[in-house]
C-alpha cells in the first residue's frame, strides 16, 4: 500500500515528456518483494532527460533515441537498475528493495508510521507472513524466538488453546508484568484465564489469542519504556503493536485462501519403569475366601494372587507374567473372575491420548481504489485435542476499511470479532481433574489402558482401577481417567469484539487532526462440572466475565520540513474507561438430581460471587521529532495521566522521554562494506498506577452461617497514600548494515530502573494482616540484545536467508521496602517458594536442600538419609539468555523454513519428577544398582540405592537405602527436584512449493502454494528428561518456576495450501 501512496506523491514530481523517435521500448516493472506491479517508477534513458513513469499496472513505454541503449529504472526505496537494451523491445524489470536507503517505515507509538532511520529507540518489527511458518494460532506463541528480548512461556498443545505468557526484557515489576497489546491503535486485553498460584485447574487461554494471525500485516515490539512512553501507564513492560492488513489494489480479484490441516500427537512423556506393578511391596496379596462376607461363588477364588488395587503407587510385584486378579476382574462383566498374566504396559499412558486434528481455514477479500479500500476476512479453526473429548472451535471475522469523502476527510473503520467455543479443555496441575497428574505421579504401571476405556459398568456406575477392595469397587483416590476426561468436561464460550472508528481531517498538507473511538470487549462463560457417581461430590459451576475498555482519543499531527530541518509533532488526549464484571455460581453439597448441571440442583446454598470494577484514566500527551539533514533526529515526548484508582492527592503524574538517532554513515560516506550505520540513544520514564479499590478500608464478605452474615477484616491493609510507580529506562543501540543490506546487525543495551513499585508486601501475619500495599523498592533490568539477519547465499535460483537473535537480561531486585530484604512472591507445592530477594536476580527459588560437607558430599544420617537444610537458596527462575534462529532456503519454486528457538539457564521445580519417583513410576526407581542387583531388592539381599555422603561426625560413608524409603525421603527435598530450564527446540518446519505461473494460467488463481508443516518437531536439547521446559505456562501470572502435572508435549504435522485469486 505504501507503494501506492508513494506513486501518488511521485506523480506530481516527474513531469517528463517523451519524444517519439526511432525505437519504442515497453515492459512492466514489478517488485521482487511480492511480484506485484510497481506504479510510479521513474524510467529514464541514460544520458538524456528523456523519461516516463510506470502506470498503475506497472507498465511503461519509452522511446529510445538513436545511439542510446541504457535505461535506468529508479524508485524510492528500491535499488535502481540500469538495463542495456538488446534486441528485444520488451524489457520487464524487477526491482529489489533498497535496504541501504532504509526508507522502510515502521509503526511507532500511537500508530504513527515513521521512517525507521528517525527512530531513536529499539523497535523490532516482524512481518505478518514471517510470524509463523506453521500457522501457530496464538500470536504470543509465534513471537517466541522471533524478537530479541522476548521470552514466551508457553503451554502444551494438549492444553488446547492454552495460555502463552510473554515477558519483554525480563521482569520490570515485582509481580512480573506483561506488555500492552495494541491492535491498530486500540489497546486490547490480554488477561489469562488460567489457574493462578498453584497452577491446578483448567487453562482457557490468554485473550490476545483472539487475534487472527492471518489478519496481521506486521507486529512492532516496543520493548522498553522509551519506545512505549506515549502509551502511558500500562506500557512499563513494553508494547506489542499490531498492524492489521488493509485492502489495496492488487493483481487478481483480491481473494486469498489459506487452509491447513495438521495432526497432533503426544511426544514428550517421562520415562517410566516397566518392571514392577502397582502396590507397596513386591509380595502379591492373596485372596482369602471368607464365607461370612464373600458370596459363595467366590470360594473358588481362594488363594488367588491379587494386586493392591488401593495403592496409587508402583512399588508392587515384578511384572513377570504371573497370573493375577487385575482390578477389573472384581467388576461385573465377562472379565469378572479372570486371572491374567501380570505383564508390562510400556505404552499405557501414551495409549490414553488421541491423535489431535487441527483444521484451520481462512479466506479474505480485499480491494481498493484511490478513494478507499477494504479488507474482509473470515477464519475458522476447528480442533480436536489429544486429550480425549477435548474440542475447540474459533471463528474470526474482521473488517478493515477506509474511505476518503473529500480530499481532506477520511473515515476509517476496523472491526474484529472472535468467537471461541471449547469443550473439555484439559486440567493441568496437581489435581484429580488432571489424568496426566495421575499417570505421572500416582498410578500403577501394569494398567492396560484399553481396559479403562470402558469406563462405565452396565448399571451406569463408573469403573476405576483404584478400587478399595474386591468387595468395594468404589475408587479410593483416583477416578477412571476416561471418566475424568469425558464426563467432567467443562464447556466454555467467549465472544470478543474490538476495533475502532476514526475520522481524520487534513487541514493543510502539514496538519491533520484525527479522532478515534475505540472499544474492546469480551464476554466469557465457563461451565465446569463434576459428574455424579465419581469420587468427588458432583458439581456444577458457572462463571461469566465481562471486560470492556473504551478509549476516546484525539490526535493532532503536524509535519513540516524547513530546509535542512524537519519537524514532526503530535499532540493528543485520551479518556480510557475500563469495566470488568464477574459473576460466579457454584453448587454446594452436590447435585440434587444426578447429572443435572444447573445451579438449581445445588443441594445446599450455592456459592456466589458478584464482582465489578470501574476505572478511568485520562491522559494528555505530545511528542516532537526534529530532524537535521535526515541525519540527526531528536525525539521528545511528554505524557500526563490521571488515574481514578490512585488517591486524589497523587493521581496526576507526568513523565517524559527523549531519544536521538544519528545516521553517522551520512557524514562519513557509506562504503560497499558498511552501507548504513545508525546510533540510538534514549531515556524515558513511565508511570504506573494500581487496580481500583486498594486505598480505603473495606470488609470482606464471607460465607454466611445460616442467616448470619459473615464479615472479615481483609488480609491486605489498604494504603491511602499510594503514589504512581515510576520506571526509568536508558537505552543505547547501534544499527549496522553491510554489503548493501545483505547483512544487518542490530545491537541494543538497556537499563531499566523500576522504582516505587506498588506492591503488596508480605508482612508478618501476627500484625493482623498478611499483606500491605506500599510504594517501595527498585527492580533493575539490564540487558543486551542482538539480532543478525541477512542473506547468506544467493546464487541463481537458490537463496539462503537467516535471522538470528539473542538477548541477555538480568533483573535484579535492588531494593524492597525499608527493613525488608526478601519478599515471597509465591509458594509452590510442599514449601518451595519463589522470592524477590534484595541483591539477587528476581525469582530466587528457596526451599529445602541438601547439607553439604566440606568435601562437597551431602551430609547423611546413619541410615543413609540426607540431612536437610531448610530455607536454602536453590536457584533462580529467569533464563540467562533467550533467542531464536530462523533459516529460509529457496530454490526455484521451493521454499524451506526451519526455525529453532532456545533458552539458556533458569531453574524450575518439578513436582512431577518428585512423585514420579516417590511413587515408583519413574525409570530411575527400577533396574539394577551398582552391585548389579535389583535396586528394589532388600538391602540385606544386596539391593537398595547407594548413597555416598558424610556422616554428621565427619566421616565418609556409603550406605545402601531401601529404594522405597529412599524416594520417600526425597519428598519435600526440593533441591533434588530442581532442574535447569535450558532448551533448544526445533519449533517450526515448513517445506513449500509455489506452483509456477505457467500452471496457473488455466486456473482462476494467480498464486498457489502448498506446503508441509511441522510444529514442535523436536526438543533438541533439554536438561530434564520427560518434560518440556518451554511449556510451563501454567498460572495467569506466568511465573513459570515450577510444574506439577504438566500436560505432555505435543508434536504436529500437517499441510498448508495458500491460494490467491
Amino acid at each position, binding site marked *: 500500500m505504501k507503494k501506492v501512496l508513494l506513486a501518488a506523491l511521485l506523480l506530481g514530481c516527474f513531469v517528463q515528456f517523451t519524444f517519439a523517435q526511432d525505437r519504442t521500448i515497453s515492459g512492466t516493472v514489478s517488485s521482487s518483494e511480492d511480484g506485484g506491479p510497481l506504479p510510479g517508477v521513474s524510467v529514464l534513458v541514460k544520458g538524456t532527460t528523456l523519461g516516463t513513469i510506470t502506470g498503475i499496472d506497472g507498465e511503461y513505454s519509452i522511446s529510445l533515441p538513436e545511439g542510446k541503449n541504457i535505461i535506468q529504472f529508479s524508485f524510492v526505496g528500491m535499488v535502481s537498475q540500469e538495463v542495456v537494451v538488446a534486441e528485444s523491445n520488451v524489457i520487464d524489470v524487477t526491482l529489489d528493495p533498497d535496504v541501504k536507503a532504509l526508507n522502510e517505515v515502521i509503526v511507532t507509538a500511537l500508530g504513527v508510521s515513521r521512517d525507521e532511520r528517525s527512530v531513536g529507540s529499539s523497535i523490532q518489527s516482524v512481518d505478518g507472513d514471517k510470524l509463523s511458518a506453521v500457522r501457530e494460532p496464538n500470536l504470543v506463541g509465534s513471537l517466541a524466538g522471533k524478537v530479541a528480548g522476548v521470552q514466551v512461556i508457553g503451554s502444551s498443545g494438549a492444553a488446547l488453546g492454552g495460555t502463552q505468557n510473554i515477558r519483554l526484557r525480563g521482569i520490570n515489576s515485582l509481580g512480573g508484568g506483561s506488555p500492552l497489546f495494541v491492535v491498530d491503535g486500540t489497546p486490547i486485553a490480554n488477561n489469562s484465564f488460567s489457574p493462578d498460584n498453584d497452577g491446578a485447574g483448567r487453562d482457557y487461554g490468554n485473550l490476545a489469542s483472539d487475534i487472527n494471525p492471518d489478519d496481521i500485516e506486521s507486529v512492532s515490539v516496543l520493548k522498553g519504556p522509551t519506545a512505549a512512553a506515549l502509551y502511558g501507564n500500562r506500557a512499563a513492560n513494553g508494547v506489542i503493536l499490531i498492524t492489521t492488513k488493509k485492502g489495496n489494489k492488487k493483481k487478481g480479484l483480491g481473494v486469498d485462501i489459506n487452509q491447513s490441516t495438521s495432526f497432533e500427537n503426544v511426544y514428550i512423556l517421562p520415562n517410566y519403569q516397566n518392571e514392577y506393578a502397582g502396590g507397596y511391596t513386591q509380595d502379591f496379596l492373596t485372596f482369602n475366601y471368607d464365607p461370612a462376607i464373600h458370596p459363595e461363588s467366590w470360594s473358588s477364588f481362594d488363594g488367588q494372587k491379587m494386586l493392591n488395587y488401593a495403592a496409587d503407587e508402583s512399588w508392587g510385584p515384578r511384572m513377570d507374567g504371573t497370573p493375577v486378579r487385575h482390578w477389573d476382574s472384581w467388576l461385573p462383566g465377562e472379565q469378572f473372575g479372570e486371572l491374567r498374566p501380570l505383564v508390562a504396559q510400556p505404552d499405557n499412558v501414551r495409549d490414553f491420548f488421541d491423535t489431535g486434528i487441527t483444521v484451520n481455514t481462512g479466506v479474505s477479500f480485499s480491494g481498493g481504489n484511490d478513494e478507499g479500500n477494504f479488507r474482509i476476512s473470515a477464519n475458522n479453526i476447528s480442533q480436536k485435542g489429544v486429550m480425549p473429548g477435548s474440542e475447540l472451535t474459533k471463528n474470526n471475522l474482521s473488517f478493515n476499511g477506509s474511505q476518503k469523502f473529500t480530499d481532506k476527510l477520511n473515515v476509517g473503520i476496523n472491526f474484529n470479532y472472535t468467537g471461541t467455543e471449547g469443550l473439555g479443555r484439559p486440567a493441568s496441575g496437581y489435581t484429580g481433574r488432571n489424568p496426566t497428574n495421575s499417570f505421572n505421579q500416582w498410578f500403577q504401571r501394569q494398567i492396560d489402558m484399553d481396559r479403562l476405556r470402558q469406563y462405565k459398568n452396565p448399571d451406569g456406575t463408573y469403573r476405576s482401577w483404584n478400587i478399595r477392595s474386591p468387595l468395594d469397587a468404589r475408587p479410593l483416590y483416583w477416578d477412571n481417567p476416561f471418566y475424568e476426561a469425558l464426563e467432567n468436561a467443562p464447556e466454555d464460550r467467549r465472544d470478543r469484539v474490538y476495533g475502532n472508528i476514526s475520522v481524520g481531517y487534513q487541514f493543510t498538507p502539514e496538519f491533520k487532526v484525527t479522532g478515534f473511538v475505540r472499544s474492546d470487549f469480551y464476554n466469557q462463560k465457563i461451565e465446569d462440572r463434576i459428574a455424579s457417581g465419581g469420587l468427588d461430590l458432583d458439581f456444577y459451576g458457572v462463571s461469566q466475565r465481562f471486560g470492556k475498555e473504551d478509549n476516546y482519543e484525539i490526535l493532532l499531527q503536524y509535519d513540516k520540513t524547513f530546509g535542512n530541518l524537519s519537524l514532526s509533532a503530535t499532540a493528543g488526549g485520551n479518556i480510557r474507561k475500563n469495566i470488568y464484571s464477574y459473576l460466579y455460581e457454584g453448587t454446594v453439597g452436590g447435585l440434587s438430581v444426578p447429572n443435572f448441571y444447573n445451579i438449581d440442583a445445588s443441594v445446599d446454598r450455592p456459592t456466589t460471587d458478584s464482582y465489578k470494577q470501574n476505572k478511568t484514566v485520562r491522559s494528555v500527551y505530545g511528542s516532537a521529532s526534529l530532524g537535521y539533514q535526515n541525519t540527526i533526529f531528536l525525539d521528545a515526548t511528554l505524557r500526563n495521566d490521571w488515574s481514578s484508582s490512585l488517591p486524589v492527592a497523587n493521581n496526576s503524574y507526568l513523565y517524559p522521554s527523549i531519544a536521538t538517532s544519528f545516521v553517522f554513515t551520512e557524514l562519513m560516506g557509506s562504503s560497499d562494506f558498511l552501507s548504513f550505520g545508525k546510533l540510538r540513544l534514549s531515556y524515558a520514564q513511565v508511570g504506573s498506577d494500581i487496580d481500583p479499590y486498594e486505598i480505603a478500608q473495606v470488609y470482606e464478605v464471607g460465607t454466611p452461617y445460616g442467616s*448470619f452474615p459473615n464479615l472479615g477484616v481483609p488480609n491486605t491493609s489498604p494504603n491511602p497514600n499510594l503514589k504512581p510507580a515510576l520506571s526509568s529506562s536508558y537505552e543505547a543501540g547501534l544499527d549496522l548494515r553491510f554489503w548493501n543490506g545483505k547483512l544487518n546487525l542490530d545491537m541494543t543495551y538497556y537499563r531499566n530502573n523500576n522504582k516505587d513499585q506498588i506492591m503488596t508486601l508480605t508482612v508478618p501475619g501476627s500484625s493482623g494482616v498478611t499483606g500491605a500495599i506500599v510504594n517501595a523498592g527498585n527492580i533493575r533490568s539490564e540487558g543486551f540484545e542482538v539480532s543478525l539477519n541477512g542473506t547468506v547465499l544467493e546464487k541463481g535460483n537458490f537463496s539462503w536467508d537467516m535471522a538470528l537473535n539473542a538477548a541477555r537480561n538480568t533483573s535484579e531486585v535492588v531494593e524492597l521496602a525499608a527493613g525488608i530484604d526478601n519478599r515471597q512472591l509465591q509458594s509452590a507445592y510442599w514449601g518451595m517458594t519463589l522470592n524477590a530477594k534484595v541483591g539477587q536476580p528476581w525469582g530466587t527459588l528457596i526451599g529445602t536442600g541438601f547439607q553439604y560437607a566440606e568435601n562437597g558430599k551431602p551430609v547423611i544420617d546413619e541410615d543413609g538419609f540426607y540431612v536437610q537444610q531448610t530455607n536454602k537458596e536453590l536457584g533462580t527462575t529467569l533464563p540467562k539468555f533467550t533467542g531464536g534462529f530462523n533459516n529460509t532456503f529457496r530454490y526455484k519454486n521451493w521454499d524451506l523454513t526451519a526455525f529453532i528457538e532456545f533458552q539458556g539457564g533458569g531453574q524450575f521445580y518439578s513436582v512431577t519428577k518428585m512423585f514420579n519417583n516417590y511413587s515408583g513410576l519413574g525409570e530411575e526407581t527400577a533396574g539394577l544398582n551398582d552391585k548389579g542387583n535389583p535396586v528394589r531388592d532388600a538391602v540385606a539381599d544386596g539391593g537398595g540405592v547407594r548413597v555416598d555422603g558424610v556422616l554428621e561426625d565427619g566421616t565418609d560413608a556409603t550406605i545402601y537405602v531401601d529404594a522405597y524409603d529412599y524416594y520417600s525421603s526425597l519428598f519435600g527435598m526440593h533441591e533434588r527436584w530442581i532442574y535447569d530450564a535450558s532448551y533448544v527446540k526445533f519449533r517450526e518446519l515448513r517445506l513449500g512449493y509455489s506452483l509456477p505461473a505457467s500452471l496457473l494460467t488455466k486456473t482462476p488463481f494467480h498464486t498457489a502454494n502448498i506446503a508441509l508443516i511441522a510444529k514442535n518437531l523436536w526438543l533438541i536439547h533439554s536438561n530434564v528428561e520427560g518434560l518440556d521446559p518451554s511449556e510451563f505456562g501454567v498460572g495467569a501470572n506466568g511465573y513459570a518456576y515450577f510444574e506439577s502435572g504438566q500436560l505432555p508435549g505435543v508434536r504436529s504435522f500437517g499441510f498448508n495450501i495458500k491460494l490467491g485469486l
Partner: protein
Amino acid sequence: MGLLAGSILLTSCNDFGDLNTDPNRPSNPLTSGLLTGAQRSVSSVVGDATSVLYAQQLSEKQYTEASRYQTIYFNFNDFYSGPLMNLQRIIELNTNEETKGDVLSSGSNENQIAVARILKAYFFATLTDRWGELPYTEALKGELDFSPAYDSQEFIYTDLLKELKEAAAQIDPGTAAVEGDLLFDGNMESWRRFANSLRMILALRISDVSPQAAQTNFTEAYSGGILLTDFMYPYLGEANNQNPWYGRYLTRVDYAISDTMHDYMKPLNDPRLEVYADTTASGKGIVPMPYGISNAEAGSITNADVSYLGMAMREQGAELPILTTAQLEFSLAEAALKGWISESAEDHYLKAIESSFRQYGVYTQAGFDAFVAQPDVAWSDAAGIEKIGYQKWVALFLQGFEAWAEWRRLDYPALAPATAALNSSKEIPVRQAYPTTERDINTDNYLEAVSRQGEDGLDTKLWWDVK
C-alpha cells in the same frame, strides 16, 4: 501547543467522583458479621486433625506422614489475620468514641467487647499451647506495627487469665446481647460461664509451673460459675458449615481408630468405643489401625479391614466439642486432689466419666457402674493423676489440641512415638514450629523468641510443660 490546550480542557482531570468506591465490599463494618466470621474459625480449632493424631486417638490409613510428624512448621497467620483481627476490630469499634455509637445494632458496647475478649483469649490459648511464645502485646496492630515482638508464654498466660476475669465481669446482662452469635445465640450468661470455665482450664494448665497463680485463678473462676452443659460447635447439615470430618471422608478414607486408643478402651469394654469407631466394611467388628507405621505397611492393610471414625462423629451436621462438662469435672477432680477445693476428687472423677458417657449417649446406670468398678478405672488418690490422665484422654476424643496439651502436662496416657517417625528426634512433638514467614520477615523478633524459648522445632518444651 496541543498539550497546553489539552491541559486547559482537562483542568478537572483529577476528579473522579466516587468511581473508586469499592462496590464489592462494604466499607461499613457490621460488627455482628465480624463476630460470626471469627466464630466460624472456632471450627478450625475443634476440627483439627493433626493434634488428634499426635494424641493417637486416630491413625491415618494410607498416607501416614502427619502421624509420623513430618510437618515441622505450622502456620498461625490465618488465626491472626482471620478471627483475631476481626475480634480486635470489634473491640476497637466498640471502644472508639467516634464509632462506638454506630455499632450498637450488634449489641451493647460492653457485651460486644466482653465476647470479643473471651474469644480472643480462647484463640490465643490454643495458639500459645501450640507454639509457645507469640506476638501478643504488639500483635494485631495492622500497619502500625509490621514487626511485632514476641511475649513469653508466662506473660501471655497471665494476661489471658486477666482478660477472662475482666471479660466475665464486663458482661452486662441488662444491656443488649450480642448479635451474630452462632455459639451461644446471644446468651450472655453462657458467655460469662464459658469465660470462667476457660479460665479454669488455663489455670490448671500452668499449675506445674506457677501453682499459686493457678490456684487463685482456678478457684476464683470456679466460684464465679462454670458451664453446666457441653459447649459444642453447632455444625449445620449443609456444605458451607459442615463438620470437617464429614468433608474429609467425602472423597477419602484416611482416618481410622488407632490401636493405641482401641487397645486401651477395648479391654475395659468402654461403651464409647462403638461411638468412636465404626465396624469394618468386611464385617470384622471394630479393628484398629496401627499408629505411625510407614505408608508401605499402612497401604498393605486392606481398607475394608479397619474401623474408621464413628459415623455419629462425622455426620454433616454433627456437633464437635469446644469445652465439655467432662473436661471441667476432670479439672475439678484434679483441683480437689491438689487441695485447691474442698470437694471429693473421686466424685468429680466419676462425674467426669458420667458426663462423657452422657455426651456420647452411652450412659446407663448399670453400664456406668460396671465400667467404673473395674480396677483400671476405679479411683484411687494415689494414682489420681494417672487415672485422670487416661480417662480424660478418652473423654477428650477429637478435642485434639486439648488432649495433646493435657498429655504433655500430665504425661498420661503413656504414648509411644510413631514407629516410623519422620522427624529427627523420632519423639512425639511437644510443640509446633513457627511459620516460615516469621523467620523470613519478622526475623529479629523471631530470633529473640527462639533464643529465649529454645530451638524452633517440635521438641522444645513449653514454659508450662515442666514435667
